[in-house]
């Protein structure tokens, strides 16, 4: 098996198994799906309320803000559906020593801990993101050009990488400080800022949301690209942040593993 196809095969197997686990408890699954749908709907509320009182905020019209919201929902679906459930499993694993079982397997441990489980209820955020995104595109005065869409896709991927890197960094903390459960709630509430266009925030808060908790790269940057408001500098900035977070998180993960002393041994 080639070195490139092996991670992909592992990835496919992990996604299949975790979906099956999620649907095993049927009543739970259905309840989760129902509450997820309502939660997704309720994120529309604040945006619509703001735009019932004004036409633009910080120069962004409603369709443009809806684009940001769509990207925010996609990010929520990704973080809540894939990243967060896995993070809590690692924190558990470090505390109980069950992480050893993963580390012994002949596949990359970071890949394994990143995709062990998915939360199906968060699928609604993805569905909601697609619907809101479609609504935004339909109400925009003009359709985006293929180049704009391409740039947006690149920036979005970079944003996903950055957000993923941030959560891996948070996971790594659990190797040194066992109690980091609460950190994820802090991260979640910081992510709530991602549903608003980034120019709403000023000064150092904007810098924090771009470089430190890079939600802006995931939500506002691609939205700017789709509406044709991108510049090569913006793309370079977005890419640099994504690459930096991936690199730093990979490096920290290795350091953290090296210092991991199993709780069971």
């Amino acid at each position, binding site marked *: 098996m080639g070195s490139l196809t092996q991670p992909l095969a592992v990835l496919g197997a992990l996604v299949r198994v975790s979906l099956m686990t999620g649907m095993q408890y049927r009543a739970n699954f259905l309840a989760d799906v129902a*509450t997820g749908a*309502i939660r997704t709907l*309720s994120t529309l509320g*604040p945006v619509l*309320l703001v735009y019932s009182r004004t036409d633009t905020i910080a120069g962004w019209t409603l369709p443009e803000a809806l684009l940001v919201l769509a990207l925010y929902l996609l990010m929520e679906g990704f973080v809540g559906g894939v990243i967060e459930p896995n993070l809590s499993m690692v924190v558990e694993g470090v505390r109980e020593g069950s992480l050893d079982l993963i580390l012994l397997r002949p596949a990359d441990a970071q890949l394994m801990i990143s995709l062990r489980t998915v939360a199906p209820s968060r699928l609604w955020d993805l569905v909601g993101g697609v619907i809101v995104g479609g609504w935004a595109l339909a109400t925009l005065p003009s359709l985006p050009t293929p180049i704009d869409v391409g740039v947006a896709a690149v920036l979005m991927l970079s944003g996903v990488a950055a957000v993923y890197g941030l959560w891996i960094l948070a996971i790594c903390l659990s190797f040194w400080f066992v109690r980091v459960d*609460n950190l994820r709630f802090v991260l979640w*509430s910081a992510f709530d800022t991602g549903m*608003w266009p980034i120019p709403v925030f000023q000064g150092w808060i904007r810098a924090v949301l771009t470089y430190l908790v890079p939600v802006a790269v995931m939500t506002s940057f691609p939205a700017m690209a789709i509406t044709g408001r991108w510049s090569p500098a913006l793309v370079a900035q977005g890419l640099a942040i994504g690459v930096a977070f991936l690199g730093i998180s990979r490096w920290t993960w290795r350091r953290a593993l090296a210092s991991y002393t199993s709780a069971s041994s």
Partner: protein
Amino acid sequence: MTPAPDRLGTTLVRIGRALPELARVSVSRHVAYRAELTLWILTSLLPLVMLAVWSTVTEQAVIAGYGQTEVARYFVATLIVRQLTGAWVVWELGFLIRSGRLNTELLRPFPPLVVQATWMITALPFRLAVLSPIVAALVWWRPDLLAFPGWTALGLTAVSLALAWALNFLVQVCFGMLAFWFDRSDGLFELWTSLWFLLSGYVAPMAFFPDAWRGWLDWLPFRATLGTPVELLGGFSDPSRVGLDLFRQAAWVVVAFVLARVLWTRGLARYGAFGS
């Protein structure tokens, strides 16, 4: 499990005797988990996000009497009131019931909720202490947001805060007790929270909602848990309607208390049947 009326007095005396010790234990618990408590408080900074959003909007025009200063004052009040009315009993109850640890709690000579309430009330000073640097920074940024609402308003705010705290606590108790019947009651509370976010005054002052909605929004329990004390503290409430607002809060507290009592009696009967 329902205590006979003649024994209610004895229970109250027992609670009164145990209260100082309970409070002492709760405070040491908060001191022990101070980092955790601080992180929790940092998760409730959404009012600052909404402050940034509405501040941008009110730059262009005053909305329903709210300019930038008023918006700042409103959301700083929201930040404070949110901390002073917070509880987490829904998670605690769910955990106690699911794990069976409620058994130990039931052995105490007074209702388990007294312990929970003491634990959560003693967190309030800590919450204020953590919040104070943030509020100080906000006042430094915008000194005009400080406005003394007057002693009467301050007194009424205290009453309203107490009612809002009680309502929040009791609503959480009701949702927490659903764990007697459902394995996953947390999801239902999440539904309540989604509605609460939108309709309590947390993401926008109630005055920003369309006028047609106000009539029924004011009668829902959401505003009673947050919006009413925030408006009093920030000096936004209409003096002629304060009485009605406080009455609505009190009425919801009574409703939630009765509901909690019914759920407790029924749930406990069911729990006993399963546990023995």
